[in-house]
């Protein structure tokens, strides 16, 4: 998008700049045991670098379509990315969990904008609604203020920042391929229908595109269910068995205190 406006900067340079500044900003933002003015300075610098990195990444991206769709997509994806970074760099465990919830909400928003309604809502139900509430529960009970030293200093900040940024770069390279064509995964369903409707046979778009469009059409949940319980039946069953085993295992661990005849030895008994 910006490549057309600024032909001087090639997309490759832009991506390299994005990856470098992401790594630097993450390293600056991560808690490294600094205090006072030094900490404040590195936070400011890291925040600015992070914004620059975000700008570079947006510039390497592709236009989605209509103005409204693009704005909404940009907002929810920015929420997801910024909250994801904040999850890692926040000092307090409770705030980390809250930022993680925000990141999940952003991801769910992205999925909803792209038409994957079931996945988006399931993300909220499963992660934000169940798992993360459990996390919060435990965090609030265990470390109310998050003052433990191992919470305040991150482990290997440089390596983790570089690894994360490089992974991000490789992913955006392999998904986006730095082409002028928007990647298949990022097409708005209505546009994708139009594209596959007339251009697919001629251009020979892969069958994956047709299938994903099919899944995102109306009666989306019914189609998804048919797909899951048709082509992927064994995977669904295996996952179900795995969950059942986990459930039985957790019950077995909890009831370890029971004696051989199945009665729990009473610690406190009702005295009549």
């Amino acid at each position, binding site marked *: 998008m910006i490549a057309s406006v600024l032909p001087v900067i090639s997309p490759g340079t832009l991506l390299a700049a994005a990856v470098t500044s992401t790594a630097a900003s993450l390293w600056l933002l991560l808690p490294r045991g600094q205090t006072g003015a030094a900490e404040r300075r590195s936070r400011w610098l890291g925040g600015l670098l992070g914004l620059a990195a975000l700008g570079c990444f947006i510039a390497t991206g592709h236009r989605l379509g209509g103005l409204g769709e693009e704005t909404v997509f940009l907002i929810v994806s920015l929420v997801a990315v910024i909250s994801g970074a904040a999850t890692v760099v926040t000092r307090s465990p409770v705030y980390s969990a809250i930022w993680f919830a925000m990141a999940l909400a952003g991801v769910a928003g992205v999925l909803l904008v792209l038409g994957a*309604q*079931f996945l988006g809502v399931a993300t909220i139900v499963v992660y*934000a609604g*169940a798992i993360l509430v459990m996390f*919060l529960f435990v965090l609030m009970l265990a470390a109310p203020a998050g003052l433990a030293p191992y919470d305040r200093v991150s482990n290997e900040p440089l390596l983790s920042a570089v690894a994360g940024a490089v992974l991000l770069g490789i992913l955006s390279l392999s998904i986006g391929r730095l082409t002028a064509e928007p990647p298949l995964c990022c097409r708005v369903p209505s546009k994708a229908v139009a594209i596959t409707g007339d251009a697919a046979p001629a251009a020979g778009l892969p069958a994956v595109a047709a299938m994903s469009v099919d899944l995102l059409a109306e009666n989306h949940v019914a189609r998804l269910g048919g797909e899951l319980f048709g082509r992927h039946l064994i995977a669904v069953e295996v996952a179900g068995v795995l969950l059942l085993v986990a459930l039985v295992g957790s019950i077995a661990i909890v009831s370890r205190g029971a004696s051989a005849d199945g009665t729990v030895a009473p610690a406190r*008994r*009702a*005295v*009549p």
Partner: protein
Amino acid sequence: MNAFLPSLPTIVALVKIGLLVGGLMTAAAYLVLVERWMAAWVQDRKGPNRVGIPLTKIRLFGLGQPLADGLKIILKEDFTPRHVDKVLYTAAPVVILAASLAIFAAIPFGSSLPAIPALGLTSEEPLLVAPGLDVGVLWVFALSSIAVYGVLLGGWASNNKYGFLGGLRSSAQLLAYEIPLGLGLLGVVLAAGSLKLDTIMDAQASTGVWFAFAQPLGFIVFLVASFAEAARLPFDLPEAEQELVGGYHTEYSGIKLLLFLVAEFLHMVTAAFLIVIMFLGGWHLWGVTGSGPVETWLVAFIRFAVLSAKIFAVILFFMLVRWSWPRFRFDQLMNLAWKVMLPLGIANLVTVATVEEFRPQLVTAVGEGWAKTVAIAIPWAVFFVGWIAAGMLTPSGTDNTPIRTPGPLDAEHVLDDPQRELVEV
């Protein structure tokens, strides 16, 4: 057309959102008045009947009360205690209110309006903010689980033991009752074959059999679970006044407290909407509303009125229950969720799945009418069996004798209790 002008669907959606949010806020204010009237009626007093039109002497049965209450609570000092976590303390009421309002994006508030060609609306306009959302029930479920965050954060950020205990109790209760709630929903979704709430209403209207009659066990489980999710008495442990002052909103005052209270009322309204839409036929009433597409404004209005009347009746039921039942103890609450509601919910789900699976064979074997009767009779048989089993096994019955650890003066109890000796050894 100018790209910056909103398109017609956008305008329609905005109008619906405006109507819905305005209507819900007004309804919440007036439901507080109704609740106080109900309390007064149950307790044989007069209740609020003085405030009428301001600056006049006209009383109007106290209909001005919500306005006065609202003004008063808004004008109160918005006090933030020094020991709270400021960011989360401010965010918690916003989160809970936003989540409980966003739920209504997927909840229909009527059937639909007939086409209005003059405005460019050429097809029936469904009375639902997001008609394209194919996962309506899941959306409701997801956002009601987001509301837990408001409670949990409010309790934690208050940095107060009453608030914290209220938040923990509340989140444990909401998590426990989400499971029977989901099991109740699943039976309906299975029978209607859709996650869209308007399709579920259409399914009940077209057969004429409301799901409360077809799945009595699911209805009971869902009803109890939605009482618990709305944290209404007998499930109002999160803010048990006698034990926890105000629970998670002990430290809140002024407009922030108002947000919490409105959100609580909206939870009750949501529960009433869901009960009516999923189990009591939605806008359908035999012989009055018809079941086909909406052709005239009269039908649209009648359906809207029937739905609203049903919802109001369910809300009145909620309020009557509040003033006639004592509160559960926490162990009773958990026993009810895990030992009664969960097995009954699973029994309902299995019954519905079996009936739906063998319905085509049943129709070919005994004909349409008898198949319908059998499909209703089997769930009722399961309902009575489950009821009797739950009553005879009394899994929620608890030993109400006081628990105390034997002290030195209680030696005789220790001696004549063999198990106690074992523990001591």
